[in-house]
Every structure is written in C-alpha cells, then in structure tokens.
C-alpha cells in the first residue's frame, strides 16, 4: 500500500520536496507512528523534532496511533506561525 507524506513549512527544506510517497508491505496494518519510523530512516533529523510535530489526515489533526489506509495523504505540520 502507499501513503503520501506532505511536508509543510520548513519541513519541505528538510525533505527536499513537498511530498514523498512511501510504499508499505501489503497485508499489514499501519498507524501514523509506523510511517514515521520509516520516515526517520531516511530523515534522521526529523526524529529529534517529533515532539513539536502535528499530523493531519483528511483535514483533521490526528495522533500517532491513528490508523492509515492505502492512498492516505498524511500532513506533517511543524510549529505554526500564521497571522
């Protein structure tokens, strides 16, 4: 199955792209945390920022335990600075 990670704010510079698509083994059940662990392998600097990140799915904030399905687009949101 595939999950697309969307990088927001300064995370785009860290990732070198606005989004990545991860391919996960079929048949498994995955939560946000599982996908993050895969991401940390490629972006180890992200692990140190985990406590300041929020996650968005279907225009809602979700936690690390939230399940993911094929085709999901998961937003990684760094600390906000609007206004």
């Amino acid at each position: 199955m595939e999950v697309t990670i969307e990088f927001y704010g300064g995370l785009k510079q860290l990732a070198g792209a606005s989004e990545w698509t991860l391919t996960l083994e079929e048949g498994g059940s995955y939560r946000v945390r599982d996908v993050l662990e895969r991401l940390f392998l490629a972006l180890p600097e992200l692990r140190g920022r985990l406590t300041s990140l929020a996650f968005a799915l279907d225009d809602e904030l979700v936690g690390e335990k939230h399940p993911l399905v094929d085709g999901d687009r998961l937003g990684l949101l760094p600390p906000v600075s609007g206004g």
Partner: protein
Amino acid sequence: MDARRWIREEPLNLEALLDETDDVRCGALQIFAGTVRDSNDGRRVLSMTYEAHRGLAARTLEKLERETKQRFDVPVCRIQHRTGHLALGEVSVYVVVRAPHRASAFEAARYAIDMLKRVTPIWKHEHYADGDSQYLDGTPLRVEPASEPSPDSGSRP
C-alpha cells in the same frame, strides 16, 4: 466547505467582508488587519510568503469564528487569511467583529487573532534583504484527546 471563505490566494477584500457582516443590531465594528512589516529580529524583511494546510486551516478558522462568537456573545466574527507571496504593507489577515457594544468587540477581536496565531496551520517564510530566507519558529499544534482512536481500534471504514 468552501475553503475560500477563510483562505484566499489573492489580496483580501475588506469591503466584501464588511458588506457580508453588515448587522444593524451592532453598534461596534472592530477590524484587525495584520500586515507585512519591514523588519523582524533586527533583520530587514523584503517580503513574506504564507503557506497553509488549506483544508485544515479553513476548518480551524471556521471553528474559531464560532468559538469567538459564543465566548464573547458577539453576533459577528469573520476571519480571512491570505496565502502566497506578500509585499511589505500587504494585509495577511483580517478579523472582523461586530457587537452591540465596543467592549466585547475589542475583546473578541483580540481573542480571535491571538488564538489564530496558536492554532492555525499556516507558516510564515520571511525573505530578507541579504538574500537569505527562513521559516519562522512557531507554536506546536496539539491534537485534542477525542481525536485519538482507542488502543483496540486498528482499522478505518
């Protein structure tokens, strides 16, 4: 939900917001406008880019409007934020509050912009005169406890 009601990629239209919110029950109209200024932390700023998680930002601002109206008992609270590249002096955000009397109008508008800065998934990218640019530090978002699934749930519809 039409996200354009809260998030726009073109210059904001205050007159349209005032027309939309016209209400003869209200004797007070409070407008807050945020504009791009030319310096930050001792650095000369040339322009600003605002980025948003558009769908979540729209939902967040819609909820903030409702919450502000209820909390301060004001009939009108409208918020619009612009995204994209803004020049110095351009308006990034409007908060428009109308209330019967001025005290609640002042308080509601202040609350709305203070909360917006803390809860809305929007990011400032500053562009400096020396050619450098940076995303500004900000406030971490927090998911509400009700949004977390129970440990036993492993699937979604």
